[in-house]
């Protein structure tokens, strides 16, 4: 069994247990152990920090992919794609759910080199170019901008897209995936921290600024009195 996450006093299992203890005991049935296990099983998957090993990329490719991801979600005052380990997420993606994008990455990395060589003949590699040069290259790469429509917004299709769209989607996914998975993204939950999502799976009201002091629903008539 795994150790509770010491760095996070509100890890999933602990917090769930605490919350449940505050509830009526009526539902504490034989199902209870299964529920706790359901909420904590995912956590086990990332118990030991992933060794920095790649399953698809050659090390030199990983450096380039990390550089691309870092321009998509840069590191500044707060962590970016680099700190979230997005390159490890993409690496695993390419041997799991996105295995049909392997060729797109190999070709895309070459395309980036080609664009770089055209625009900045002196630059050797994308990863060693200046941020301004990198952005110019990515701007040129991102010519296609498929529109997301409301009806399909829950299920973006990352296959059969231009390389830039694929790497963009993978960067976002690697930054914001539930860190309690074995996808190797959102390391230490830094992506969620950036967007303000607490790294927990159990919350209690009040949730936000407006419901904090909300007095509760009243019929319209009684308000008018």
């Amino acid at each position, binding site marked *: 069994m795994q150790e509770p996450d010491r760095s996070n006093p509100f890890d999933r299992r602990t917090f769930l247990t605490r*919350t449940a203890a505050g509830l009526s005991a*009526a539902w504490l049935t034989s199902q209870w152990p*299964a*529920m706790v296990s359901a909420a904590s099983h995912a956590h086990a998957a990332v118990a030991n920090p992933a060794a920095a090993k790649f399953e698809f990329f050659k090390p030199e490719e990983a450096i380039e992919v990390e550089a691309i991801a870092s321009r998509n979600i*840069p590191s500044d005052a707060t962590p970016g794609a680099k700190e979230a380990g997005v390159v490890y997420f993409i690496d695993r993606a390419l041997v799991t759910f996105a295995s049909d994008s392997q060729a797109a990455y190999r070709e895309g990395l070459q395309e980036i080199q080609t664009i770089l060589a055209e625009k900045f003949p002196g630059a050797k590699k994308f990863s060693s170019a200046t941020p301004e040069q990198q952005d110019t290259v990515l701007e040129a790469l991102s010519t296609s901008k498929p529109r997301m429509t409301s009806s*399909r*917004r829950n299920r973006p299709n990352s296959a059969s897209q231009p390389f830039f769209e694929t790497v963009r989607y993978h960067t976002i996914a690697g930054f914001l995936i539930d860190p309690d998975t074995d996808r190797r993204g959102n390391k230490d939950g830094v992506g969620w921290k950036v967007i303000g999502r607490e790294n927990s799976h159990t919350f209690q009201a009040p*949730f936000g*600024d407006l*419901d904090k002091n909300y007095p509760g629903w009243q019929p319209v008539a009684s308000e008018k009195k």
Partner: protein
Amino acid sequence: MTADKVRYQTSDEVDFVIIGSGAAGGILAKELSTNGFRVVVLEQGPYLTENDFSHDEIKVLQEDLLTNHPKLQPNTFRKTPGEKAKPQRALVYGRAVGGTSNHFTANFWRFHEIDFVERTKVGAIPGSTLVDWPITYADLEPYYTKVEWEVGVSGLAGASPFDPPRSKPYPMPPLPTKSSGVLFERAARKLGLNPFPAPMAILSQPRPGRSACINCGFCLAFGCEVKAKSSSLASMIPVAEKTGRCEIRPNSYVHKIELDSRGRAVGAVYFDSRKNIHLQKAKAVIVSANGAETPRLLLLSASSQFPTGLANSSGYVGKNLMLNSGGISLGVFDEQLNDYKGFAVSRILHDFYELDPQKVGFYGGGGLDARFDMTPINFAAGGGLPPDTPRWGKKFKDTIAYNFTRTVEVFSHGTSLPKEDNSFSLDPDLKDAWGLPALRMTYKDHPDDIKLAKWLNEYGLQILDAAGAKQKWTYPIEEQQFAVHLLGTCRMGADPKTSVVNADHRTHDVKNLFLCDGSSFVTSGRGQPTMTIEALAFRAADRITALAKRGELSA
């Protein structure tokens, strides 16, 4: 725990074989097995439990943990019957024990009285096959109450002045009010409207074996790890299995309903997980496979007795598909709303349930709700950002960082008018991984549906404005090409020429074949169909039980 679960042989002639274990199938299984019948439920998807559920957006949304697989089950789409349909993912439905009820948003309002009698009330509508239901709201009322109490719905009776009459209050109070609900309520009241606590099929109080909602925030599209969401899996299937008379058989993909020479159903033919073919014998067959797969199964079961599809003498199998119209307006606020916490919806309004066609210039009605139903990746990858947001780089990062906790959606859901051309049928070319004809969807919204969606969407923007949104925008309303609500494709009616099942959900053509799910709908209501699917299932179970006890199924 699994040792005492009943297992039948395929050669055992059970009382009922039910195809599908979702919102309708789960209830029918529970009701019929409780009533003493021997039941086999054939579910095409796996038997997942809470332990298998995950907050992994890739696993759930990209790898379809809970839903139909586009690679195994491709489908095609076209707008009108004259066109050649092209491969395109056009529908999503639950493919696991519990069906779509595992991953729904859980909005559970009842249909109103108008939904059953629209044709009588408004007359014929050009371009629509609109007719009345053969049952009324009053017929269904006791079963809505049954859903609320047995499946588990949170809400506040009497809070909406537009609510239809009810025989009992909700069994438990509404879920907590989210910040989106507070701002929606204030803004809507400013506009003279009547917002009220959303009825949700999510527990606000624990029940035996089930936790109250722990507000994890992974609700729409995800399965609930603590059984707070009132799926069939959490609420009905365990009761059915406990009777010792109901077997849930997962990974069983039914592709034919077998008939005898007298034209009576004798059972269901299915592929097991190794693609071996079996016939499960039964005295009667109930299809609850959803509004797409139910008509497909009938069409796949064509035979010399029923050359155009089983129970299709009307020609209406697969026709009159309705998806519900609607749209989304979004706003960004100064306050930190943290709406990612919790279930999706805490406030809705029904002031526009029955719009006056003379005033608005179209037929239809709908509801509006305040929600945030986006998980982090899908928010940032495009679902939740203002249209002028840079797609990458520092400004992109700054926008997701600021907006995620401050964004709200006003979601509108409304009528789809039935049209004969809108349908599910068998694609003449494309096959699924089992070699069977793939689903072909044909859909073009009725012009009034588009007008309604635009009207509601505009109102959504007004509410966001009145709520003080610092930025607001809306997705353009376009003709729908993606289906989630699958309604009307084997409609219920008294006339065998214009409907597929009667008011007992019995097919007009085959006496021991019943269909009960979204396909039974005659009209679309105003969105949020699952509550009504479940009420219909409870009612169908009563009707079918009565028929069986009178010996009418084996005659």
